């Protein structure tokens, strides 16, 4: 177990270093930020002064060493665009993204898993077929198109829900959309947009796993013992489908955070993704670099947690470990 964790941690550090290097290389390849900062009519002296102040004139290895050292301390420097420390800029927008991702993940799990079970149990039912066909839409349509379609339907035609922004937020330590109905209205369309892909993915995954498990001998045996369908389907079958589901859910939460960019842009959701996009337009490299590192970090941590969760859920892994120690 310990060796496993140490090995995992070591791999994680390698991944972070690689991402850090890629993020840092951005500084050299996405154009001169000085142009955007001093305006089109600035003189050579003003440009020089700005480039020097940003440390852009130092050689590459020195710049990278400085970047990596600072990043380790969580210091990604000043945003070129906002003139505040990057971690402050990201910190301000993190709650908006996390709330959005939270609601989307809850929706995906709460709807996707039961639907998966249902379609798994009622393979031939008309409802199942309908669900499976519509789920293809969720898998194949790009997020921005789904967002625009939802806006068109629920904002423009029906006029039920707002098409952009966070609306009314309440401060509960952070600005929140989840505590008032007015605020919650604003989060519905973006979170549905964001969750649709994950929802359909989960549903199809759970269905496939259920079909697999239902064919196994121990399910047949459980039925033969006269257990209720409920106990068989949920107590035995569903539980055994959960290992891949947890892996996928974990990884998908990572991509929910990373791919919130598109949803946030479509709905003008003032979260991290929108910040990242504005950073790209402005060549705000510190924000871009920090965002990349943060997303990589989130993935690494989620992967680690998922690996550890296997131990909890899958007794075979624990058994192997125990057997290894016995030798």
């Amino acid at each position: 177990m310990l060796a496993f964790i140490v090995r995992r941690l070591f791999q994680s550090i390698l991944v972070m270093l690689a991402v850090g290097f890629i993020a840092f290389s951005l500084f050299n390849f996405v154009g001169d930020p000085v142009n955007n900062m001093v305006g089109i009519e600035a003189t050579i002296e003003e440009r020089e002064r700005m480039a020097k102040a940003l440390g852009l004139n130092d050689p590459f290895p020195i710049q990278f060493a400085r970047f990596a050292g600072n990043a380790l301390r969580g210091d990604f420097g000043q945003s070129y665009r906002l003139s505040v420390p990057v971690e402050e800029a990201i910190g301000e927008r993190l709650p908006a993204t996390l709330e959005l991702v939270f609601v989307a993940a809850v929706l995906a799990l709460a709807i996707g898993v039961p639907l998966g079970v249902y379609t798994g149990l009622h393979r031939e039912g008309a409802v199942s077929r309908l669900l499976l066909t519509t789920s293809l839409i969720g898998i194949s349509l790009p997020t921005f198109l789904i967002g625009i379609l939802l806006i068109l339907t629920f904002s423009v035609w029906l006029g039920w829900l707002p098409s952009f922004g966070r609306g009314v937020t309440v401060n509960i330590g952070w600005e929140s959309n989840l505590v008032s109905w007015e605020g919650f209205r604003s989060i519905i369309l973006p979170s549905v947009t964001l969750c649709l892909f994950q929802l359909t993915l989960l549903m199809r995954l759970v269905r496939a796993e259920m079909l697999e498990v239902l064919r196994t001998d121990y399910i047949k045996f459980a039925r033969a013992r006269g257990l209720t369908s409920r106990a068989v389907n949920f107590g035995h079958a569903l539980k055994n489908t959960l290992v891949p589901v947890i892996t996928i859910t974990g990884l998908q939460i990572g991509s929910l955070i990373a791919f919130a960019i598109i949803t946030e842009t479509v709905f003008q959701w003032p979260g991290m993704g929108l910040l990242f996009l504005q950073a790209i337009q402005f060549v705000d490299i510190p924000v871009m670099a920090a965002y990349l590192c943060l997303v990589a970090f989130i993935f690494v941590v989620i992967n680690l947690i998922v690996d550890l969760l296997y131990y909890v859920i899958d007794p075979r892994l624990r058994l192997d470990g125990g057997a290894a120690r016995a030798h």
Partner: protein
Amino acid sequence: MRSKNIVIGAVAAAFIAAGTAADAKTFRYSTSGDILGLDPFINNEGPTNTMKSNLYEGLIHRAWDLSLHPALATDWEQTSPTTWRFNLRKDVKFHNGNDFTADDVLISLDRIRLPASNMTFVVSSIDRIEKIDDHTIDIVTQYPDPTLLLNLPNFWIMDKEWLEANDAFGLEEGAVVKTFANLNVNGTGPFMIEEWVPDTRTVLVPNPNWWGTPWHNLTRAVFTPIGNAATRVAALLSGEIDLMYPVPLQDVPRLESTAGVQALQGPELRTIFLGFDQHRDELLDMPGTGKNPFKDVRVRKAFYQAIDINAIKRVVMRNAATPTGLMIAPGINGFQPDMNDRFPHDPEAAKALLAEAGYPDGFPVTLDCPNDRYVNDEAICLAVVPMLKRVGIDVKLNAQTKSLHFQKIGRAEQWNTSFFMLGWTPGSYDAHNPLQQLMTLDGEGQGTWNCGRFTHPRMEELTDLIAGETDVQKRTAMIREAFQIHKDEVGHITLHQQALAWGIGSNVKEVKQRPHNDVDLRYVMMN
């Protein structure tokens, strides 16, 4: 009986309350990006400047049609070539109730000149301001400056007591910096700030003590940035906002066909043009030949005549463009309507010119083009490529994001381009600015974006003279002469002014469209 009266009274009161609620005119508008702050002197950026001018005022106000009107100064006269006497408006109060006096003008001049200020250019010709009494000042310029008045609308006046009481005199560079004066406002303008949440919303309410008579009838204005154009259109269609810009060109017909929504179009001040490297002895694309065809005016003219501007207007710009023969737009001081015609589109003449210049089979060249700066910028370049191919020129297109484009064609890479696209809006609203920045070279701060390094001795001379000439007629004559030389020499290929398009909802009765492409709340009327 009494209780019945109370009920009637309550009902009446409710009606009155409902009546005032119905009279509330909240104007909600949106564009692609948020303002960068509220400090008048930090960021020189179009939408931010417009927001500042809702809140602050200068001595002079530039109206929606670009005409100049008295604001904090009631009148002015020139007492010597370098001295202007301004009489300041009396009984003007800042939002916090402080009186406006000459001292406020003086401290604003000191503050706008701090090294971290981005607005210094509007007072660059001013030597000093002398206080005569509390409501009279003399502005003394370093040289006779014919454009002084044009620059004053963006010299916003701040309150001395407020700056001192809040220790807010100093400036910090950057967008959305958290300095006191960038987050708070105390101006004399017709609107006051109620709330600014960066990237989310800016809320304004009318200033009840404003000295003027408002044209608008707003009781509240909410500005929201929406980056995605499709979402912005949807928000307008669903009635969540009353006005938005820019409307993507492909959505204009859609808005026009939707009941209750209209698209308002007009020309913008920015001129889009192409330029050529006229400096290097050897063209970057023709290494080893020792030749630079662009040094020959016949080649430049051939390029000009090979481009079918009407096709670009019709197909690429969907008619949302005004072809231009001058480097400045109507509305800019010095614009000459009778000189705005272009050389006719004539591929045969272009071929003949090329043959005459010794390039009957054309030559290779790379066109540098931005792809996210101007309306359909890359599409325009894509249209230009086959037009030039038809006369034998082998054009390679290099379209890239604006930061890379401007770095390549600009001073940072020593004008590393042979043929490029650029757009320009004169910051001073005067012809001298493009002459100085785009069409001449010699002199301090001159030719910053003259990426092809076009130069002509007489134009260099004229540009310096125009800077200091205060006699309007003489100045106009010199501007005309300079423009004529630029045209004869084909210094650049002028293309067009792109159109601006606003989407307007049914709650808006009238709005005056400024060619700046942003909304001055003074000119908004709701139903």
